């Protein structure tokens, strides 16, 4: 572990802890060669959600190259990325940033780093829960799980979402009963094997 000085703005620089092994870890886990980035900014210029991130996509790559693990895993960027695939489509060095983001938030979840955007991983966990139970998506369960666990909705948000839910139910766009596949054992086995590599 060493300290690296990073310019945050023109007038402010911060001493950040650098982990020289982090870049290698990220490259090995993701299979993405981040060393190729030469900071052309193409990723950030085309990113539809860069405006909502604390570090821009090109900055995340630089932080990874420098081994500044805490800054990367503590960023909002790794959770805000919408996986729209614009950056990897345009990157002159074919750096697969969306896949890199997957690797980064998987490391953050595994190491128990508190997510800067807690509602995002709560959504994804709520999304896979019905798949685990029924083999297919069951939107009502997913939404209820999200609302209960994220506890971010104000009364007004809840009312908006409830009325949207009712409107969708009226049009039979939401199924009341869960879907259920026959070979649920196969799905359980897939989850068990895939998740056995994850550490809590």
């Amino acid at each position, binding site marked *: 572990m060493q300290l690296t000085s990073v310019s945050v703005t023109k007038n402010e620089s911060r001493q950040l802890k650098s982990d020289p092994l982090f870049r290698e870890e990220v490259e090995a886990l993701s299979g993405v060669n981040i060393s190729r980035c030469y900071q052309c900014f193409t990723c950030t210029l085309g990113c539809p959600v860069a405006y909502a991130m604390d570090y821009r996509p090109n900055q995340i790559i630089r932080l990874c190259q420098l081994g500044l693990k805490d800054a990367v895993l503590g960023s909002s960027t790794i959770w805000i990325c919408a996986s729209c695939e*614009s950056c990897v489509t345009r990157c002159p060095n074919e750096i697969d940033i969306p896949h890199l983001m*997957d690797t980064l938030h998987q490391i953050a979840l595994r190491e128990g780093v508190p997510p800067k955007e807690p509602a995002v991983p709560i959504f994804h966990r709520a999304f896979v829960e019905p798949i685990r139970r029924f083999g297919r998506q069951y939107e009502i369960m997913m939404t209820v799980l999200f609302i209960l666990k994220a506890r971010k909705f104000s009364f007004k948000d809840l009312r908006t979402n409830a009325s949207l839910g009712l409107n969708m139910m009226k049009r039979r766009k939401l199924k009341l009963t869960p879907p259920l596949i026959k070979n649920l054992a196969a799905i359980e086995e897939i989850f068990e094997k895939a998740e056995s590599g994850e550490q809590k």
Partner: protein
Amino acid sequence: MKYAFYPGCTQESTAEEFGSSSKAVCQKLGIELKEIPDWNCCGASSGHFLNDELTHALPGRNLAIAEKQGLDTLVVCAACYLRLRSTQREAKESPEFRKRLAELIDMPYEAKYEVKHLLDVVVNDLGLEEVSNRVKKPLKGLKLAAYYGCYLVRPPKIVAFDDPENPTTMDRLLESLGAEVVDWGGKVDCCGGSLVLSRTEIVLKLTGDLIKGARDAGAEAMVVACPMCHSNLDTRQSGKDRLPILYFTELMGLAFGIPKTDSWFKKHLVSPFNLLKSHDLI
């Protein structure tokens, strides 16, 4: 033409109208669909987010069953399309990947068959002449913005039937139905996808920009091929002047004169009835 058909979860819930219009249109065009028996969810937005093995094992099980059917797989949802194709591509390229996938799903999978999107099959394999030959009610005067979003065209290493920056497949299809398509800049912009519950305001900004872009270009409706985009665009518009969001298959069905298309249009939160009536289409 015969395909193993992967409907995807939304075809039976939030995008039921996309599912039934796709099936009706395929029947009309002589595209035979054999539903993949006991298919499961592909993991969509969240499998890849949480776990690299889950993201391939979930689509992998469907692909392995389809391989037993001995057919290429046809997908209508853009998100399922990317997930299935991504697993198929990796399996095709790497024996190690196939080995691990087989362990995960407890079935062999050799990636012998292709994964195709309905839009690709209709426009590039069947051809637009076959489409225009079946048009009974041309969509004359209807001004449409074709919206591709992300996963029909990106990443081009995995999904590659059209140009990733300026695709035209859907535009040409809509023209062959007699509609007028507008040229606009939002074709491949992102709608915010799965951030809709966790960061709703981001999705509202992105969909707002898209709807404004389509309207400024003169469009009276936007046309999509992704249930996630549809849901984000259709269900969260506010105000009086709302832009109808239609699936390309619904418009094909309408132009082909398929009966009971109104049962599809009734499902939309932004009703397209006034627009379609104003052009004498319904």
